[in-house]
């Protein structure tokens, strides 16, 4: 069996097991989740090592670990086809790290544990399935599988105005996937030469499109479907002005769901933007990228400024996610190797960082019962471990060398500035300014809640992290530092994947 299929099969088995366990037996469910999560992590580590081995062994086919496509719907030529390149391997590794840390963070959930983990697993299946798919149909299917559990996860286990946020998030993302479905069908029907067999396979479509372009065929269909597809994924990537679901959704979601959502699910947007929109419609991507550079440029700066004025910790982090995810799309649209590599690095780095942030915020909130930064202060004295971790996450977020954020942002801006066009350069400079603004809101929070006088006498008796919280937080910090200290293997792995994409522009 193909190793990639394990990413879908393991969660499915876990779902089956948990389905059979009685709801009262919470500890057993948690054990199953931890074991399964570790198994997923092991598989992705194994995959990464083997991938690197194969590449260094000189295997230069575009996708590795491909299966013989399994025919599913013959009349539409839909297959179950999987395969990975360096980018998907990085995303799979990221996802499995977030999933296992998310499981540990979810130990704090006491209400309807069984249902919670079932939806959580469905979300993971969607995420993993999306990254391994090479077939547009299954890719889209997994994409939607990942979206819908969010509704119940937020609505049932969330906090604050959860019903409103859950509905807003679901409807906006489903609106995005409505754009997307038109885009995908448009690609499907227009990408083949007359009379040839239509296909949903990404690799074949890419070859067909290149052949069509070379033969001088009319490529104007791309001008309709590229924006639709890009916006469709852009909604999930929190692109301005479609980002409004993100702050509300993240603020209301339970901790682990925020982690998974900001850490992985939003990356689906960025990944889809280049794997589907740009990779399959390169002509329109070059022509129309300016529109989206403007929009994503606004996301970067606007998100950072918004974060400065928020007082709710989760809102601050959600707006910072808007800014950072905007940077991902922004860098992708520069369409050169360095910037795109930086974009993927930023996806990984932001995924880890923001997961760490949300985990810490959840833990702090669990103790102080407030997320308002005006009501907290001096927490460093009572929970030193959590607070030091918070500082580390903050430093990573504002790009301290030695942590992953620096590697990613550095690569992005160096790459992006290589673009000779004046329009692009102006926007790169604008984008750079976000680094400064990031420092403003991160340091503001750190100064306000960690140091200074204690705001609330009740906070003096708070306890520090317990074991499962430490496991989650330390493993995330380890990953962030690992990437920051030796980024080369990762960036090499990613840039190999990027090369195949850059050459078609």
């Amino acid at each position, binding site marked *: 069996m193909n190793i990639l299929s394990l990413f879908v099969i393991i969660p499915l088995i876990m779902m089956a097991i948990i389905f059979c366990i009685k709801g009262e037996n919470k500890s057993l469910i948690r054990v199953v989740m931890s074991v399964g999560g570790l198994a997923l992590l092991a598989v992705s580590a194994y995959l990464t090592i083997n991938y690197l081995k194969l590449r260094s062994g000189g295997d230069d086919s575009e996708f590795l670990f491909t299966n013989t496509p399994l025919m*599913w*719907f*013959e*009349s*539409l030529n839909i297959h179950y086809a999987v395969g990975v390149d360096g980018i998907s391997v990085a995303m799979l590794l990221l996802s499995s790290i977030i999933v296992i840390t998310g499981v540990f963070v979810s130990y704090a959930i006491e209400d309807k544990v069984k249902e919670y983990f079932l939806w959580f697993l469905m979300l993971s299946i969607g995420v993993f399935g999306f990254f391994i798919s090479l077939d547009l*149909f299954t890719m889209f*299917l997994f994409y*939607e*599988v990942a979206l*819908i559990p969010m*509704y*119940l996860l937020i*609505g*049932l286990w969330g906090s604050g105005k*959860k*019903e409103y946020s*859950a*509905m807003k998030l*679901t*409807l906006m993302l*489903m*609106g995005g996937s*409505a*754009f997307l*479905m*038109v885009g995908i*069908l*448009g690609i*499907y*029907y227009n990408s083949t030469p007359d009379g040839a067999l239509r296909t949903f396979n990404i690799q074949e479509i890419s070859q067909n499109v290149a052949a069509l372009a070379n033969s001088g065929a009319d490529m104007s269909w791309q001008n*309709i479907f590229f924006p*639709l597809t890009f916006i469709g994924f852009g909604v999930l990537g929190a692109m301005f002005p479609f980002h409004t679901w993100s702050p509300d959704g993240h603020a209301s979601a339970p901790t682990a769901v925020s982690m998974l959502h900001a850490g992985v699910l939003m990356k689906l947007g960025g990944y889809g933007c280049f794997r589907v929109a740009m990779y399959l419609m390169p002509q329109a991507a070059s022509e129309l990228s300016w529109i989206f550079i403007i929009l994503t440029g606004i996301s970067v700066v606007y998100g950072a400024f918004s974060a400065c004025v928020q007082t709710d910790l989760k809102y601050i982090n959600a707006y910072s996610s808007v800014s950072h995810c905007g940077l991902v799309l922004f860098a992708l649209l520069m369409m050169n190797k360095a910037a795109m590599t930086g974009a993927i690095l930023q996806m990984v780095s932001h995924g880890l960082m923001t997961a760490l942030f949300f985990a810490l915020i959840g833990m702090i909130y669990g103790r102080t019962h407030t997320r308002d930064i005006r009501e907290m202060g001096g927490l460093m004295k009572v929970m030193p471990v959590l607070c030091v971790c918070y500082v580390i996450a903050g430093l990573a977020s504002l790009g301290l060398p030695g942590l992953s954020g620096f590697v990613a942002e550095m690569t992005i801006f160096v790459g992006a500035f290589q673009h000779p066009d004046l329009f692009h350069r102006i926007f790169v400079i604008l984008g750079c300014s976000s680094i400064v603004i990031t420092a403003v809101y991160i340091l503001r929070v750190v100064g306000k809640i960690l140091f200074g006088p204690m705001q609330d006498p009740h906070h003096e008796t708070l306890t520090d992290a317990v074991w499962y919280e430490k496991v989650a937080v330390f493993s995330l910090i380890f990953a962030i530092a690992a990437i920051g200290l030796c980024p080369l293997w990762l960036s090499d792995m990613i840039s190999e994947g990027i090369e195949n994409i850059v050459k078609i522009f």
Partner: protein
Amino acid sequence: MDYSNFLIMNHEISLVVVLIITLLADLIIGGNKKVFQYLALGLFTIHTVLGFTQWGSVGDETSFGGMYITSDIHSFVKNFLNLGTIFVFLFGFEWNKTENQKHCGEFYFLTLSTLLGMYLMISSGNFLLFYIGLETASIPMAALVAFNKKERESAEAAAKYVLTAAFSSGVMLFGISLIYGTCGSLYFDEVLVNFFDSPLHIMATIFFIAGLGFKISLVPFHLWTADTYQGAPTAVTAYLSVISKGSAAFALMCILVKAFSNYPDVWQSFLWWIIVITITIGNLFAIRQENLKRFLAFSSISQAGYVILGVYTGTAQGMATVVFYLFIYMFTNLAAFGVISSIENKTGRLNMDDYNGLYSTNPKLAFVMMLAMFSLGGIPIFAGFFSKFFIFAAAMREGETLLVFIALLNTVISLFYYLKVVKAMFIKTSENPIENFKSDNMTRIGLFICTLGILVLGLISPIYEYINGISFGF
């Protein structure tokens, strides 16, 4: 004497046999409702199984000089209509045993009569037979709608139904007479060659489709739908929304392809608008509904819009997606009605607010309802996603990007109100929730099969491929 003409009609004949036995049995053993119902259900199940045994072996055949047509796809549609009727009987079993005790026999007899009418409608090769089928399906239906004799609403619903049905058949007859006047024949294949895009032909088509639009409850011919659905007994509402609607939609597609396919522009240009307003209005009105039966009425109006999106294409792929959509829709919508009727039988509660906190008291029913809502909203991996995707794929193939886009944006609106039901059951809490109860066995069997259908039918590709292989278009 040559019986071959009759043998081709084996579906109809076997149904007539079941019908007559049911009628006689009601006279003889009608006193014992349980035995009678088992007998009727058993006979009808045998009839259904017999229908399925001819799976894939019915050739393209006609009898009575082209009056009656059958083929694999016709047989398939009749089979799944049978299946849906079985579900309706299962969900209505308890109701027939208790509230409807007096008229239990009539319920079965009338339902089967309408089914016979639908068979003829689907299989007609001539407008006259089509019209007879339509009337056979409509008139007993009016009686069924009025079955809750003590309720004024039920009578009102029936009056609305019968008046609009009569009016719509009048409109349709006018259309048919124009077709006869201009084409000189009522046989589909002769209409096909004599049909042009002259004003009179266009008018005839519009009248014809408008008449049928009443049955499928397309906007602007939908005004009877909500009141009738609300007033009718739930078993009948389920039957109306799935079986009656499905057969009419399929019949419309057959006739458009067979009789009017030389000038598709004539009907496509105004079906385009009908689709847009049907989906949109159905959705917008569904948002405001509190009564779940009215809610499902408007939801079924908008679902009909999606079906017509497939009909609109007129291609073989379009027909395959229409039949597949109806097939899935049957499982999904009947699952929803099964839950509603089982709760209504036990507690008599029908409003969305009554469902608050249902998950904590009746988790299984809430789970089935949630699956049905997700499937209606087109969420993967449930079957509804596949049927929607295929319909959109068929329409995109004809280059209808804008239409597909509008329909897709509407799925987002529809998701809003489907999620409202999920929200009520799972997220909201209630001081006075529906207490825990055990549904009767028949309902549970029905719900179990429907749930299974929702979960696996989309994933099993051979079903779609089979339908795709036997469809026809122009």
